[in-house]
């Protein structure tokens, strides 16, 4: 019985200390890298675009970030989630009527759109842009 009580109490104390350490780790992560995948941030950035694009269907995606690399993959994922339930496809594979732009750097968004066959509808700020297919 003594052995059981010593063991149980030792485990209880160690488990609580481990829980505290786990909490400290979470606290540090929250301070150092909040929203690491930009999921919440993208929802805010792309909120103004939602009123301009159709409520459903396939939407094109134009970006200045490399879609094969980590930053580009994360940006595509968070934008896709922000504009869902619309499906997001790279304009290199399909040319839907509407497209959203997601830009990391300030640039000539009109020219970037025209190069892909789209005209700028509205620059919603912070690199979030709405495009529509340019008529020939």
């Amino acid at each position, binding site marked *: 019985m003594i052995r059981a009580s010593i063991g*149980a*109490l030792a*485990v209880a104390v160690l488990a609580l200390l481990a*829980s505290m350490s786990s909490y400290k780790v*979470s606290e540090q*992560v929250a301070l150092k890298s909040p929203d690491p995948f930009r999921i919440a941030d993208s*929802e805010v950035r792309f909120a103004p675009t939602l009123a301009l694009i159709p409520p*459903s269907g396939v939407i094109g995606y134009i970006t200045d970030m490399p879609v094969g690399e980590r930053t580009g993959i994360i940006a595509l*994922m968070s934008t896709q989630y922000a504009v869902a339930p619309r499906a997001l*496809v790279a304009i290199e594979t399909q040319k839907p009527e509407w497209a959203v732009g997601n830009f990391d750097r300030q640039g000539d968004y009109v020219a970037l759109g025209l190069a892909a066959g789209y005209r700028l509808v509205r620059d919603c700020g912070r690199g979030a842009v709405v495009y529509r297919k340019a008529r020939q």
Partner: protein
Amino acid sequence: MLDFLAMVPAFILGWIVVRLLAPLRSWVLQISLGVGLGIGITSSVYFLLVWIGIANRVTVLSAEIVLLAVAAVLFFRSKPAFQTPPQFAKPSWIWALRGALILGVCIFALDCSEGLTASPGGEYDAAAIWNLRARYLAAGAPAWKYAVSDKTGTNHPGYPLLTSGFIARTWTLIGDTRASTPAVFGLTFAVVTFGVLFGSVSLLAGEAIGMLAVLVLLASEGFVSQATAQYADIPLSYYLLSSLALLALSEWSPPMLALSGAFAGFAAWTKNEGWPFVAFVCAIALWRGGRRALAWIAAGAAFPLVLTLAFKLFLVEGREGMFPATAAAALKMIVTGGRWGEIIGSFVGSFWTLGFPWAHPFLLMAILAWAFGFARKQWWLLLPPLGLLAADFGIYLITANDLTWHLNTSNNRVVMQVWPAILFSFFIMLRPPAITAPAVKRAKTR
């Protein structure tokens, strides 16, 4: 708060079904099992309504009210004969464990609060897979088909839909796709996992050991850190644990075996890893309980398994390119020694990172093994979770993906999925504290 309220009908439905089939003398266990069962049932019903094209607030509510009414009628007609659980001594220091458990749960709540403050939308796969597909499902036609097709950029369209389905069901009921719903869903599963572990171990080995089991799970940083990730791994770990706990508690009673089968089936409706687990549970039931036990497990698992199969066979567009194209290519991978070493190393690393070295769960388990010793002989309950790990090992051996990437992105979660079930199997084997003379006297006068 509204999210949680919209989930409550599902929880009540599950609780009634658990009360009907499993007369367990533990309200913590009844409620914890009921929550997961209700989520499994209502996510399945919601998905069927989506599939036939009539999912909206009215139809979802109507379907759930009908199910609740039927369950309530059966409930009031039944006279459950509650199991009489074995009596265990309550050691004099049990108050310290109760205090530690309450404190541990409070720290867990603070931990989750920090996690949700940092990432309110969850981790990468939450938005890339589970919550994205929930948004598609909740939008109705034609968007819901994006959830099951790879043609529109959806990752893993063949992943089962319990998680996405239940989140979408809740969004449909409340009328918007607020970010808090997946967070509430994830936290609910973490809490009921603690509940099932505590309730089932308490019934089988006493309250003291039940509380120690939860404390060790709370000390498992690898598990706790996933509570706010909004992935399907904690729900899966819950279904594996619940199925195993019911199997252990069943004493081969048919309704409880069927319930154990249902939880195993809902594991397959949660993630593909549920399939090998179902096979291992069936094999164990056949080995230990005979053909009748197997039949009841299979009967309980039938609905979610058929639903998952139908979803995969008739709806999913595109296939996962995870396996080699030919048997020869697979064999070549299997005989490559370097792959074995890399996979073993990854599993060792994943178990190592389950906790802090100075309070590692294995260290805590070793202390308890020394303190209590082993009594029970239900060692075979360890086989389904270990079997699932072996199946995962086999998948890694023949994965067509880059092995290092595959291990780095999934192996810690694979270990975490089976961790509560492994803890359960370990803790029910511990010898409960001996009854001291005053405790015997108290027990006799009751």
